[in-house]
């Protein structure tokens, strides 16, 4: 009877897609789609910001047209980045307690401070200094409620003297310089959380923060590239081809670094061949085959790299180039999302006994479901739309909006 029960157990497990032996508490994954979304969103923030800082700190003049756009993109995604975590944990009303009673030994508890620093000291300040001149001008030109709105945004600092503008510029630069390590911190931190889980051979790796960082840069550049192409189309403006080419070039370099880092990580694991290697290879060749081999590596890395190389260095008409860049950037987004998926979900698919695999079942409705994820993915674009209405980032339309002097 025992073995009949046992074979029932096996049959039930097979019906659930479980293979091999897993502990009872590994049946269900606790970090689901929303926890995949969270590193994806913070990655976009860090990436977009680092792109903006290229112009500011390293004086890459060509990408001027997307400088402000990438700042606003970073801001819009930053505002949404903590929402998946809040929805995942439940009880969002308790989240402020980690500010009140900071726990310095817990990396997760310190997130609030990393986030607050990045949002308030880096992003908001940089946007404010960058737009202050425009805000002041608007507060003078607009009428009615709008006038007061912009007046409040000036915070009372309305001087447009040469000296004041110069200071804006200097302050912006300084903040960007502080901002780069902060952006590294923000996303390195996310990788750190995963990399420091000693008990999980799929996560535990010192390379984790660095790989996260570079994939963040990749996703951020690709996102700004996408937004730039789409907004130009919608606004019936000529794309600045030099800028797009440069963006694609940066994207390619970042992808090369990212890809080789991941390859390095992979080879190291293979060479070390720790006892987990058997189950991890089984996981990669079964459970993660589509999301890792197909979408992350082939569609998300190799194909876009190849098409960017073709478009950037081949002799193609601009039309075709744009299309290739566009497709490549979309594939990169899909690829980076699968990267996050493979890290977060992959790390929970295999049993700590190293002898079995479980499956992840997506929730459709509910606080952690697909619809919530789609909503949280669209929300930053809505915020970005509003931001561009309030603080237009375009350098090519409105005469009164002037670009900073860099």
């Amino acid at each position, binding site marked *: *009877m*025992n*073995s*009949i*029960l046992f074979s029932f157990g096996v049959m039930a497990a097979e019906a659930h897609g479980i293979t091999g032996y897993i502990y009872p508490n590994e049946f269900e994954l606790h970090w689901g789609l929303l926890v995949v979304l969270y590193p994806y969103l913070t990655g976009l923030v860090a990436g977009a910001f680092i792109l903006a800082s290229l112009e500011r700190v390293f004086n890459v003049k060509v990408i001027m047209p997307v400088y402000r756009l990438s700042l606003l993109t970073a801001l819009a995604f930053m505002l949404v980045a903590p929402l998946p975590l809040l929805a995942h944990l439940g009880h969002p009303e308790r989240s*402020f*307690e980690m*500010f*009140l*009673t900071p*726990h310095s030994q817990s990396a997760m508890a310190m997130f609030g401070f990393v986030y607050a620093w990045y949002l*308030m000291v880096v992003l908001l*300040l940089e946007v404010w*200094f960058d737009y*202050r001149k425009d805000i002041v001008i608007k507060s003078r030109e607009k009428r009615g409620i709008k006038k007061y709105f912009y007046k409040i945004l000036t*915070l*009372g*600092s*309305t*001087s447009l003297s040469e*000296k*004041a503008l110069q*200071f*804006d510029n200097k*302050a912006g630069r300084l903040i960007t310089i502080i901002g780069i390590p902060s952006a590294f911190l923000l996303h390195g931190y996310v990788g750190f959380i995963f990399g420091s889980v000693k008990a999980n051979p799929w996560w535990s790796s010192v390379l984790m923060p660095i790989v996260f960082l570079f994939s963040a840069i990749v996703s951020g550049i690709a996102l700004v590239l996408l937004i730039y192409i789409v907004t130009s189309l919608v606004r019936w403006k000529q794309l600045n081809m030099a800028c797009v080419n440069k963006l694609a070039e940066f994207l390619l370099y970042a992808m090369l670094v990212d890809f080789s880092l991941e390859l390095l990580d992979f080879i190291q694991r293979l060479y070390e061949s720790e006892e987990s290697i058997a189950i991890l290879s089984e996981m990669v060749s079964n459970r993660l085959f589509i999301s890792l081999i197909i979408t992350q590596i082939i569609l998300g890395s190799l194909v876009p790299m190849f098409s960017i190389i073709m478009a950037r260095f081949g002799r193609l008409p601009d039309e075709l180039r744009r299309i290739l860049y566009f497709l490549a950037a979309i594939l990169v987004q899909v690829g980076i999302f699968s990267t996050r998926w493979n890290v977060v979900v992959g790390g929970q698919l295999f049993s700590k006994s190293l002898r079995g695999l479980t499956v992840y079942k997506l929730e459709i409705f509910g606080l952690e479901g697909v619809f919530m994820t789609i909503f949280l993915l669209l929300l930053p674009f809505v915020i970005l739309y509003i931001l561009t209405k309030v603080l237009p980032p375009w350098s090519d339309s409105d005469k009164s909006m002037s670009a900073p002097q860099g």
Partner: protein
Amino acid sequence: MQIKKRTNIKFNVPQQLIPLGILFILVITALIVARYLLVPPTFGELGHYRSQAIEDNLAHPMSYAGYYSCNECHDDMMELKNQSNHRGVACEVCHGPAAKHIEDPSEYLPDAPRDRGFCPLCHGYDPARPSGFPQIIPALHNPGHACIFCHDPHNPLLPHAPEECSACHRDIANQKAVSHHATLDCTECHVVAAEHLTDPRSALAQKPVERALCGKCHADDADASKGIPRVEMASHGQRYLCWDCHYPHSPEAY
């Protein structure tokens, strides 16, 4: 508006820093005030938690009297139980929380679980329980009578020694019953002293140590039934014990 007035005065500090400075001071003050108001007073005294929580828990009314407190009045019963197989089972596990009974024994008497449903909580068969733990299948084991009709709960002696190893090793017996070794008796492979059936831990049954045991039936030249599959003892499985690869209670040849 106040700020606006100030801008007319010549400041060495750049004008932008004043509102920003005020804003940041406001935020930080808000944080400090919120901390002051919202952090519970005893937080952090002993660790990263509210130490008053300990007092709060201490203030809960006590329901259990504890194992040793029964000894004061029921020492005879305590002595009886402590030399029995229920020595590891505390009185209040069966009789429920009895703190009130200790305060006033005549006023409050604890319950005694007399019905059949209770004992199978521990003794009903469950393959997850360790092999050797006495387990019965309640539907089959003397149905219709209360357990205490035959077993004294404070000294659960068995009326007579169990006849089957399955009384305590049902998990193994069940597994063996549907395996290739179904026809084999447990004693074919295990030497079991009679005391093992009454006081199992003081006389543990022996486990096989030599592969020759399996050779009795499976060696090429063994004097056993023709249908039994044979292996060449010298080479098959090399120097490993047969049960390093085959589970003896449910052997498989893959």
